[in-house]
């Protein structure tokens, strides 16, 4: 067990810190510190391309596909320096962290050649089409249909809560390809071009006043026959494999955003005098501990190369961070007081902490709700009986 970084790692830190600083002070100063995923999209596309041009867009990927084969330590360092420099949240997170690794793990060489360069270059933004009106927690209940028509798949149905679909270039969907099949059987994982006539995107307003997610309608939407990852009817396995990547290194970048949020709370407490309140101090301490344990939990999870073993750190990670951040939202508002409940101007658009307070209420829902996480932990981690299935 060793936590310290080597001298070579520290040299790497200097290198990426210097580059990021230069970018955020200079050409990309206008998008510094943006944490949402929807403002200044055009500038942020350029930022993705700038990262790519300098080899920083997907450092954990193999060199052959535009990455750097970065070690775990290097990925940790890059995530830390990225946030320290105030670089904006990555709008192509889904491409780099989910679509890319899935294609690397399950795709053919032709598919890698077709899809990876666009992601690595920062030109293709991706979104994830899993959830449907009747397939939320019960994701296997997907009803969107895919049918092979000559050398093309034809897709009909509806996805919902599709984050970033309104400006994405590609979407991966799971669709039912076997007529009459039920549950996880008979699903196929397809990669489809957005912006085609058969795909309509309708934004959905969120409680924080923004609209990051959408309804996505498929009406005879098409993609070439070789757009499927894995084999026909094998989509569930691919979809679940992809979810494992959600617990990858990107979690470290997310943690750095949490760091910035906690620091902002501490600064606010110092500014308004709450910092001398013993109860507030205790809650801040608790938040600090939780954030550190998140970091070390992630490092345990990422250091675990034995993927066959049940990995407690990985299994518990989602509910841990989601719950932590929900509590952080409460702490933020308690520290800000009523000043946190008003904003200048007539736009219903919130500064970082009040927005985090509102947004954190979705953290415990997307990517598997807290209740579903507990079911998974109990069933997979502790071997408890599975939830009975109803027949409505």
């Amino acid at each position, binding site marked *: *067990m*060793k*936590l*310290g*970084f*080597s001298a070579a*790692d520290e040299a790497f830190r200097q290198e990426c810190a210097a580059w990021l600083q230069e970018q955020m002070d200079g050409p990309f100063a206008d998008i510094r510190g943006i944490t949402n995923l929807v403002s200044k999209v055009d500038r942020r596309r350029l930022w993705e391309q700038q990262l790519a041009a300098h080899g920083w867009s997907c450092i954990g990927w193999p060199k052959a596909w535009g990455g750097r084969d970065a070690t*775990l*330590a290097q990925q*940790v360092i890059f995530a830390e320096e990225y946030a320290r420099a105030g670089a904006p949240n990555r709008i192509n997170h889904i491409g780099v962290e989910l679509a890319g690794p899935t294609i690397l793990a399950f795709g053919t060489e032709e598919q890698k050649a077709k899809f990876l360069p666009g992601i690595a270059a920062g030109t293709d933004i991706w979104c994830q089409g899993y959830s449907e009106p009747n397939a939320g927690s019960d994701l296997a209940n997907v009803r969107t249909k895919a049918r092979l028509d000559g050398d093309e798949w034809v897709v009909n149905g509806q996805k919902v809560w599709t984050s970033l679909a309104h400006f994405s270039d590609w979407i991966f969907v799971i669709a039912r390809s076997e007529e009459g099949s039920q549950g996880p059987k008979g699903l196929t994982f397809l990669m489809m071009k957005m912006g085609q006539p058969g795909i309509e995107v309708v934004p959905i307003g969120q409680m924080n006043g923004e609209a990051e997610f959408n309804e996505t309608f498929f009406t005879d939407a098409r993609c070439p026959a070789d757009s499927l990852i894995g084999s026909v009817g094998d989509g569930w396995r691919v979809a679940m494999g992809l979810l494992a990547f959600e617990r990858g290194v990107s979690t470290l970048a997310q943690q750095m955003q949490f760091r910035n949020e906690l620091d902002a709370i*501490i600064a606010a*407490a*110092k500014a308004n005098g709450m*910092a*001398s309140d*013993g109860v507030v*101090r*205790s809650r*801040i*301490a*608790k938040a*600090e*501990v*939780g954030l*550190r*344990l998140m970091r*070390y*939990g992630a*490092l*345990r999870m*990422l*250091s*675990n190369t034995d993927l066959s073993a049940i990995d*407690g*750190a990985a*299994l*518990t990670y989602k*509910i*841990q961070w989601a719950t932590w951040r929900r509590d952080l939202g409460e702490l933020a508002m308690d520290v800000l007081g009523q000043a946190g409940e008003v904003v200048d101007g007539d736009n219903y658009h919130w500064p970082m902490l009040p927005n985090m307070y509102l947004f954190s209420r979705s953290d415990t829902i997307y990517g598997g709700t807290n*209740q579903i*996480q*507990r*079911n998974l*932990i*109990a*069933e997979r*981690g*502790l*071997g*408890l*009986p599975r*939830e*009975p299935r109803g027949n409505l």
Partner: protein
Amino acid sequence: MEFAFTDEQAMIAETVKAFFAENASSERTRAAMAADGVDRALWSSFCKELGLAGIGIAEELGGAGLGMVELSIVAEAAGTHVAALPLLGLAAGARAIALGGNTDQHQAYLGGILSGDILVAAVEADAEALHFADGKLSGTLPFVPHGVAADLYVIASSLGVFVLDRKAAGVSISAQTTMDQTRPLAKLILDQAAVDRLDDADKAHAGFRQGGWLCLAAEALGGSQSALDITVAYSKERVQFGRQIGSYQAYKHRLADMMVDIEQARSAVYWAACAVDEGDEEQALALHSAKSFCADTYRACSGHMIQLHGGIGFTWEHDAHLFFKRARSISSMMGDSEWHRQKIADLVMGAAL
């Protein structure tokens, strides 16, 4: 950077787990509880056969080398069985002597302690309750863990860290009936008792706290994991309303919450252990985090264990109360969780105005 056990650490973990599973049985622990809270035969084989007493103490001082990660592995395994052992005294006391003692002090104490022949108790004392002059210490120490069983005491305070022989003149020891009988507290009254002040008080006190806090945190981790494992096993056996009780969501979700906390407690212990071993500048933050988080986790998990067992969990016969009481005593000892959190707040946001 690699936050996983090395092969050697994994081997130590396996060895100690097997050792405690085989020897630290409930019957033996209960026999010790009825006496002075130390299973002497277990302690002797721990020190002499396994040779584990010297973990975290440098080899030149007669220790086994290795560090706080390995010490935590041992304490976690001992905590798994609420073993009735003077491990805290060893972890805090021997480390204080090793780090803060001079050569004479090393020679005077470490040999006997590490062989298991001399039983050491460690206690942190409020300086205001003590008076030290001319090598003599006076005052009352109301809560000395394993105070009746011990041969030697290491007393840490801001006046210095002192080694006291139980046979010294002016020492009176009285047993106290203690809620956690696996680590009973005694009252020590010192009246001009001769003590040996460790040469480097700061290093001694730092070592005392590193060893003590980590030992308690790791014991709490092991105990919490046991509380979960035992309850999971029970939930699969016990049937009510025609179903295993572990199939009810209210029940299994509570078990899941226990696992979520325990996984964080595991990160906390090994983060703090690595931070000490690597001399990391954040080690104080790590130690305060580990002690507070693990104690809180243990209290919650051992409480859930009772609830999720129903009536049987409230009996003397069932082991649930051993965990519950150990959790309580760990939480109160060497700074309660709130105290540690205020220290953390000082570290991250500066002292309160």
